[in-house]
């Protein structure tokens, strides 16, 4: 077992973990951060996307021990002081989710995309979300939501 200490959604956590433990399993099973989900085993679907030190990562593709000392943000820590993040609001406004399973990862990736490019074109949004699969929405409203959020963040 290896001792890790990190900040998750603003709280300091410290645990002994088996070295092979994936970050997503640490988040879900040890910390109870079940808002982050697992959709595949091959890092294709992006449902498990979280932020690690401000960058989006697929948490099924990161070992918990690699996150030692890092600051992680999950979908559960995105809203601040009860105020939804503009991307969360836009997903609701634009009906960018149906079953909602891909949504945590899709929102976290969208936040990351807008951090890198605050004014993305439709094509840039589509390419920026290529690593996140959604089976319900056909992506159209997700793209619309990212555009809407981009406008709000810029203004």
């Amino acid at each position, binding site marked *: 077992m290896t001792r890790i200490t990190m900040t998750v959604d603003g709280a300091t956590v410290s645990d002994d973990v*088996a070295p092979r433990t994936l970050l997503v399993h640490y988040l*879900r099973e040890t910390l109870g*951060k*079940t*808002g*982050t*989900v*697992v*959709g*595949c*085993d*091959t890092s*294709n*679907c992006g*449902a498990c996307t979280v932020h690690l030190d401000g960058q989006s990562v697929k948490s099924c593709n990161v070992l918990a021990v690699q996150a030692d000392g890092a600051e992680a943000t*999950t*979908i*559960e820590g*995105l*809203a601040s002081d009860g105020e*939804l993040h503009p991307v*969360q609001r836009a*997903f*609701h*406004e634009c*009906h960018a*989710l*149906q*079953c*909602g*399973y*891909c*949504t*945590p990862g899709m*929102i976290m990736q969208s936040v990351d995309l807008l951090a890198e490019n605050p004014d993305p074109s*439709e094509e840039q*949004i*589509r*390419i920026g*979300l*290529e*690593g*996140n*699969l*959604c*089976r*319900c*929405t*056909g*992506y*159209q*409203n*997700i*793209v619309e939501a990212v555009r809407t959020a981009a406008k709000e963040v810029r203004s």
Partner: protein
Amino acid sequence: MTAVEEAPVAEIGRDRRRKEDQRLITGRTRWTDNITLPGMLHVAMVRSPFAHARIVGIDTSEAASSPNVTAVFTGADFGEELGACINAWPITPDQVTPAHSPMPADRVAFAGEIVAVVVARTATAARDAAELVDVDYEELPAALDLKEAATADETGGPIAHPDLGTNKSALWVFDSADAGTGGDVEEAIAKARADGVVIEREFRQQRLIPAFMEPRSVVVDPTGEQLTMWSATQIPHIVRFALAATTGVPESKIRVIAPDVGGGFGGKLQTTPEEWVVWALARRLGKPVKYTETRSESLVAGHHGRDQWQKLTLSAEKDGTVTGLKVELLADLGAYVAVVGGGVPVLGAFMFNAIYKFPAYHFACQTVLTNKTWTDAYRGAGRPEATFGIERMMDELAAELGVDPLEVREKNWIGHEEFPFTTVAGLEYDSGNYEAATALAKEKFGYAELRAEQRRRRESGDPVQLGIGVSTFTEMCGLAPSRVLGSLDYGAGGWEHASVRMLATGTVEVITGASAHGQGHETAFSQIVADRLGVPFEAVEVLHGDTQIAAKGLDTYGSRSLVVGGEALVRASDKVIAKAKLVAAHLLEASVDDIEFSAGRFNVRGTGQGMAIGEIAAAVFAAHDLPDDMEPSLDSDATYDPVNFSYPHGTHLCAMEVDTETGAVRMRKYTCVDDVGTVINPLIVAGQVHGGLVQGIAQALWEEAVYDDAGTLVSGSFVDYLLPTAADTIDFDLGHTVTPSLTNSLGTKGVGEAGTIASTPAVVNAVVDAVRHLGVDDVRMPCTPQRVWQAIQAAAATEGASR
């Protein structure tokens, strides 16, 4: 109290944002895999790597002695308590149906079948130990190719279940001459061969995987008097029924909960071996047990969809008037006849004739057992297959006659003044307006302009050619009238249940037997009830997906929730109003005949006197002053059995660019005008259409479950099974016409499957249209660059040879 009050905005038709979203966008979710219970044990499955093999022996000793392992079981450790996976729809009385044990003890019939289970304190320990289970298999010849399996009786080829002696499960036939719904199709074809047009084609419906985003998961808690199962399922009520029917536990002792469920698309319309095994383990061990599949397990063991060969013969007069349609299908069931199983292609029997006035029709479907993953419903279930077949054929007819594909359709479709119309398949279409939907679609699409561009590109010899694909589809939704299901030998009815409970503090609890998994029922059903009862949208709470709360129901599939479940809601609401009216009359000291109900208030006609429905609910709760003989309750139930299916329709137009040098295809434009009847929430309807379109387009262009010669699924992960991403898709241009259904109060028709059913042939027709001048008349799905390129090369070779 004033008589004149501002009328509230109608909820029906309003683009309400969803009630469901708040939890889902903040991660406050209840997926089955999130559930943790005290003392809970975890399961890992040992699955067969062989498509067909005898289990010679299983050595579990090393696994059983691994750290933190509680127990290891094989099929031999269980008797009847394991139950069986059921087929609820034997399509013929003589259907050949293999016994389907959730964990067979002697022989596996597809790669992925469960042969042993490890139960441990953690999921990791279970999975580690599962690697140590040593199974000795004797490999058997596997029936893999659908056509070869269908003729194995004659050829002596491999039999999927040797004890059955055949791979042929059932032959289901409909003939319009026998049924009295039309003429003799052989006569029509013979006549057309003499002095008309006969189009003969064979199409392949490739095997698909539903690929819902949430892997299936099941938790069983046996520690209460009622055993509770949480399952990522579309059908908690049917699962409960089937558990009781097959495992010997009384139905009254079973509670099934579908908590948040992450998509289904038919793929969670199943009674699964995984559910049955976990059920047995929890009962045996007396502890809560959880199993969550990996994605690869999901792809290999969750049921697949489609997989047909379609041999189609269409006859017409020289002017394009269709005279007959003959449909001969081979449908791959996979290794077992699943819960709906052979019924899926049979649903297509009623849809091949589509919106056209065929005077003669023959449909025959042979279902076939193979040693591949079992197949069952996938979004559209039987209707996409039929729609693909007929819409491809109508394009082929147009090409043969040298006329516009919309022209040949218009010549043959049911005119809007001809409804109600009884089809050659025996269904009565209540309403529709194909002319209006097509006119709007052409205008939005810019049909004439795109045809002009297509001509220019042809003339200039542009290496990138443009093709335009048409699909004027209809579907049968709102499954289903129980009498019709009975006549087709389905094992259950098609009704739906709803309850409306008026709470004393002014809110309304609505319970539906439909079981949403992303559709937005909580929002749309709130809108319906808010309108009906005249209460605020926010005051309505919709509960579902738990058999102890929603005690009756037949769940969600087949675009039935709104059409059937919504009507049940309307009827339960009306019963509440009828009861409240008696109380209102009593409390207002008026005659019942003088009470008018409007916008949530019961008013005494011609006076300013009235009471709100909430006030009456409070008065009934107190029960201090009610009419004599009246029970102190407004709460009401309704169980609605539909009288007919509903028939959404629409016109979809697709423009595809095809690079004739590389075979690469690119979607240029997609316009659809759908007529789904009355729209409750346009935002939700658009979302359903978008998602449906992409699933249908994905069948046309990308997705296929591929097996190797040994029967191993080689597209067994998301690396290999090609789901479209945001970068693969475009923005779609949506429109609507509204021809309300005449068979339910709200005029709704259902929308969940429309996009998927309509889009596949529109896309393939467009691809073929782009290269038809090169001699291509079909491209097998998925239309990958390789297949498109090969089709062009093959056509060129044929043209060269014939020159």
